[in-house]
């Protein structure tokens, strides 16, 4: 990946534009970025190793804390994998409730990304507007599950809380407001001049590169690859709902903005359908006391896929018949999209790096959670004063470089 250029510039980790620590190494040849590499060890908390020491129920609590934005995605994917090994039948109502919370999570995640994207561009007004509307979605989630961030609604065999009919009017009202705001953004944002200057044909990813690098979610769909787990491998209640997969062809940052905006409207439609025909019935299939659920898991392995807001989230669970899993593997969507960032950086301006990185809506907490066993206390080394420049430090470097070029 590192090009033949003379200069290798470390960027980050204490970088303000990325709310989470990730470190990029950019190979720079003047203004052009020829190669990029990344290390993610800053957010590495050793989830999977810990997951092997906790039983199936405790793991729901742990895996929910992988990421603050898509916590429901991880628990649903994990629970669906374990349910495959438990031969328990999840009732329809529980499936509908899972879909409802999943789509509300997609709404608040996309609105969050729209705001952060605006902030990256310096367009703080968009940031404030998008996050103000996001509060409506968080209100709905708090109404349904009692918490704004980690909802803890999933359990083995179904959901822990039921939804009542009298909550629906408030949800519908919030939804109406969000849908109207999303339509407003879809109309205004792609037309705004300075947004175009920062987004149009920046970090372009062609359809071939996207599918070659196995990109997932909105990042892939913005380049024309129609991949959406809700259609390909329907889970929860998605087979009984109709919605379409939004794709775009240009594959640049603007396409990613537009795809996410239209997906907000699509998610609103899905939530309305779920509210309209929410079936009756109980909310968990395993009619046993919860603490005994962990021992119902037979020996075997299972893979489950889930369409998280950022793309396909894959959970692999292998059980050896005891109440603790033998191996839990989580591949979060952002891990699949990192190569597209590296590809998008190549040949683009250095100053666009924060925008391109924000383009895939990176969730660094999802990607860095591999298990490690410590045997001794390694000496803590503080990285010295090597040339750690911030992302846009480099455009100044480019100016000097151009200077020599011209005279």
């Amino acid at each position: 990946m590192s090009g033949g250029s003379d200069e290798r510039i470390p960027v980050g980790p204490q970088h303000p534009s990325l709310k989470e620590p990730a470190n990029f190494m950019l190979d720079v040849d003047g203004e052009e970025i020829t190669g990029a590499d990344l290390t993610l060890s800053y957010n590495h908390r050793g989830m999977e190793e810990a997951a092997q020491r906790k039983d199936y129920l405790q793991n729901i609590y742990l895996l929910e804390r992988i990421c603050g934005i898509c916590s429901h995605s991880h628990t649903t994917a994990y629970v669906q994998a374990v349910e495959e090994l438990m031969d328990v039948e999840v009732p329809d109502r529980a499936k509908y409730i899972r879909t409802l919370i999943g789509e509300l999570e997609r709404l608040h995640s996309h609105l969050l990304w729209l705001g952060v994207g605006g902030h990256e561009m310096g367009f703080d007004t968009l940031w404030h507007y998008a996050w103000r509307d996001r509060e409506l979605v968080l209100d709905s989630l708090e109404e349904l599950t009692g918490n704004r961030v980690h909802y803890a609604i999933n359990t083995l065999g179904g959901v822990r809380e039921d939804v009542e009919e009298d909550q629906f009017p408030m949800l519908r009202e919030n939804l109406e407001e969000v849908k109207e705001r999303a339509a407003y953004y879809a109309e205004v944002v792609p037309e705004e001049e300075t947004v175009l200057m920062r987004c149009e044909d920046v970090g372009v990813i062609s359809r071939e590169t996207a599918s070659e690098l196995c990109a997932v979610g909105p990042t892939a769909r913005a380049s024309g690859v129609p991949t959406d787990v809700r259609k390909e491998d329907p889970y929860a209640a998605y087979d009984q709902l109709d919605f379409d997969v939004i794709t775009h062809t240009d594959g640049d940052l603007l396409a990613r903005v537009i795809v996410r905006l239209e997906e907000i409207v699509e998610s609103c439609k899905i939530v309305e359908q779920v509210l309209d025909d929410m079936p009756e019935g109980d909310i968990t299939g395993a009619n046993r006391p919860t603490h005994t659920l962990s021992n119902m898991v037979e020996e075997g392995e299972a893979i489950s896929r889930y369409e998280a807001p950022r793309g396909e989230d894959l959970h692999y669970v292998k059980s050896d018949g005891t109440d603790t899993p033998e191996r839990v593997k989580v591949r979060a969507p952002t891990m699949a999209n990192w190569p597209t960032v590296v590809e998008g950086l190549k040949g683009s301006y250095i100053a666009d790096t924060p925008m391109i990185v924000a383009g895939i809506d990176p969730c660094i907490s999802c990607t860095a959670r591999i298990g490690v066993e410590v045997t001794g206390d390694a000496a803590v080394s503080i990285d010295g004063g090597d040339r750690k420049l911030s992302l846009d430090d480099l455009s100044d470097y480019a100016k000097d470089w151009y200077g020599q070029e011209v005279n």
Partner: protein
Amino acid sequence: MDADELKAQIEDDIGDLITETRRGRPRRIEVVLEDPDRIVEIMEYLTGEGIKHLSTITGRDDGTDVELLYHMLQYGEEQGDGDLGDANMVTVRTFVPKGTPRIDSITDVVPGAALYEREIIDILGVEFEGHPNPDQLLLPDDWGEDEAPPLLKDEEPDEAEVDD
């Protein structure tokens, strides 16, 4: 192209390469590759058939050798836009002896595998032959050479207290 037809087609095309194929849930096909050195060959075959999307590589240490699972997906666009109904998942399972944990890297056939392979290098110490840039991805900078690669079982978790 539903899962059974795909399974039948795989069996007669590359029957010699694989020991057995299993059908779990709908759309899940598992293929056991007996000789790890032919991983690139089977990958070339699969990508030729349109199974190009590598979701991830799962590594597990089962005591004697390291088990690697390549989760591949049949991509939607082969079935035309919009019709994504039957994207089948083909999992290739292969075993690498712990003594000589070495396997060819598939990055030139599936470029998206680079990061997943680096993850396995970090946590299981498996060496991927021909990987373009195998340096550390996930471990902290001060992760000494002497410290064992992460999920290898031979290292007993000594003082990390294991809760109930």
